[in-house]
């Protein structure tokens, strides 16, 4: 599989706008939207997408400790730092 890191959606280049952060550094309790996913690690990417963490979905960070706890649409997920760094959010 590819290891190149590409930001998606592929048709519109995504720049790191202000307000565009990784989930790990997102402000808790504030509502954002997933802008794109890091594609370096195909395993993690596949898992995230299969579980419904996809660009365009609304996201709220609920906790940073003891693990990252966030809500996408109606579902809650607990992830570690490494995975939280794979998800990018815009407000």
């Amino acid at each position, binding site marked *: 599989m590819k290891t190149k890191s590409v930001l998606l959606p592929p048709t519109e280049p995504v720049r790191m706008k202000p307000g565009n952060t990784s989930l790990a550094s997102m402000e808790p309790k504030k509502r954002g939207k997933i802008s794109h996913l890091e594609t370096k690690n195909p395993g993690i990417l*596949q898992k995230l997408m299969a579980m419904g963490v996809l660009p365009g979905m609304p996201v709220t960070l609920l906790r940073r400790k003891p693990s990252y706890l966030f809500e996408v649409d109606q579902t809650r997920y607990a992830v570690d730092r490494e995975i939280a760094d794979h998800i990018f959010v815009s407000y």
Partner: protein
Amino acid sequence: MKLPYICSKNDCCCRNTGCDPGTDLPKIVLVGNPNVGKSSLFNSLSESYAVVSNYPGTSVEITRGKGRIGNREYEIIDTPGMYSLHPISEEERVSQRMLFGEKPYVCLHVVDARNLRRMLPFTVQLLEARLPLILVLNMMDEAEDRGIEIDRAKLSRILEVPVFGTVSSEKKGIEELKTAIADFKPSGKVPKIEYGKNIDPRLEEIEKRLEDAGNFGISKRALGLLLLQEDRTAFEKLREKGKEKGCEEKDCFGLQALAEEASKQADCPLTYLIALQRQTYVNGIMEQVMPDTDPGDTEGPGRRKEKSEAAAKKAKPGAKKIGLAENIDSILTHPVLGIPVLFLVLYFGLYRFVGVFAAGTVVDFLENAVFGEHINPWISAQFTALVPYPLLQDLFVGEYGIITQAVTYAIALILPIVGAFFLVFSIIEDTGYLPRLALLVDGMFKKIGLSGRAVIPMVLGFGCSTMATMVTRTLETKRERLISNILLALAIPCSAQLGIILSILSGNPKGLLIWAGVIILEFIFIGYLAAKVLPGKNPTFILELPPLRKPRLSNIAVKTYSRMHWYFLEVLPLFVMASVLIWIGKLTGLFALALKVMEYPTQWIGLPTDAAAVFLFGFFRRDLGAAGLYGMHDSGFLTGVQLVVAAVTLTLFMPCIAQFMMTIKERGLKTALAISGFIFPSAFLAGFIVNTLLDALGVVL
């Protein structure tokens, strides 16, 4: 209450194969994401029972049962949850293989109505695979509580499959579903999704090359999509087909090369492109069936607030329930408050209820009063009078006799303890506490090479490590599975053992703390060592947290009963066999010899030679060893220190035969032997160290 007919094919702990219909009944296959209620639905449709719990990854094996719908019999198949047709963990692969292999009469795709948007892409995949489908929107009660409304008729028209709403835990909507199953006619429609220039032409090419390759169980388009995502099972299928056609090459149809080429040319993983296109297609459907809840890409925060208020008003009846669950949840997952909650659960659930009440009070009553004073003396007297042969008397009512030892231990000692344990355990499982625990311990578990997820098989291991060894399938990397298998075999005592040890040491709090401390230390030490030694990366942690739910009495009762049932069936024949073996051993003098050999390590850790029998039992089964220890404690043979040393050694001692077999199945013979070869000396070494230390410090317990 329907009494379950316990069986699941290939289940380690249950050799009941009688319920595998195995005939040519039409098959109803339940598939869907984890924790959406597939097993609940299975229990409503079939005469069999599959375990239902509130965490993803409950079912890790396929369960088959028979069910009557209308006036026809069907084979009903429950599968482990999977997130998509393209699996990541092993239990998902079990389901995927099954879909490839069986020819279902109908597939019921079970989804959580609350999360339709997230789960519809899988429906689309199943349709692409041309599987005959009915869509079941389960958990309609929770969706209503949250004010979610779905236009089912419209959804059904768009997808051209029947769509039904159910509350499977309350058996609502089941009759309508059954009628639909009986009248089911597959529709020919396949959703036409465009995947873009990197994928579509290649899909066509694949379909063309496979034109006369025969049937794969799923459509060639779906197989092609899996091939492009380089799915292992898809390639295996292809190789099998190649072999049938007499082609011995690895890449018969040249598709591996094609897939590699495709992913080289695309500028990001094809999986990503495919998933995005599918979700876009699903979003289009969602707009039509749930018009007022789009995912939020077009609206500002102001409008969203208005809308959620409107939704909250609609959801009045459920709002309070949700609020309470929210509050409890924020305590359970709190980095500081979560820890005392954990200790409260352990103290009351495990120590007070299982250790002191069940293993202490109840066992004392059954073992000493009921069996010791009434049943056994009576049977012994009757038996001795009826059968005047001392040899047979010894076999049945002697010191290690079938009645006096095997049956007494199984009924008076093991059954109440595992019963109490499984009861507490079922309650914990059904609330949804386990995923919260996983979140809480992830940081600590990373230090021993595990992700927080591994806490689920570890906790299950306290019930029966054989069962838990199978559940390690839900862990993603081989390394993580191996480490958890080692720890399960080594440091996790099973419920019977734990209950007995808690009860023996309950009058001796310092001893209890020392025992617990040593076991925890060993757990951490071995885990840390394994993580250091084994090659590979630390696992990552991602887990879906299901909502906290109120446990249902009926589910707890059935689950506890079914687990006690299999445990008893598992334990009794082995206990009887142990009695018979000992009897033969005594006749041939082998028992005395084995005892003599075991006496060396026993003395070495500072125990009286009589305790050798306990370890000999322990070889057979952990719980039999613990039962032996209980007997010794009862007759007051051991001092406080000796009890602690014996408890430590026995806890760390050999896994039982069943678990050993399961480790072979999951990890292979070599690994299983290596694990056991390591455990035996290390258990005695730990016992030796504890004894020497306590001795040197002059501790009196």
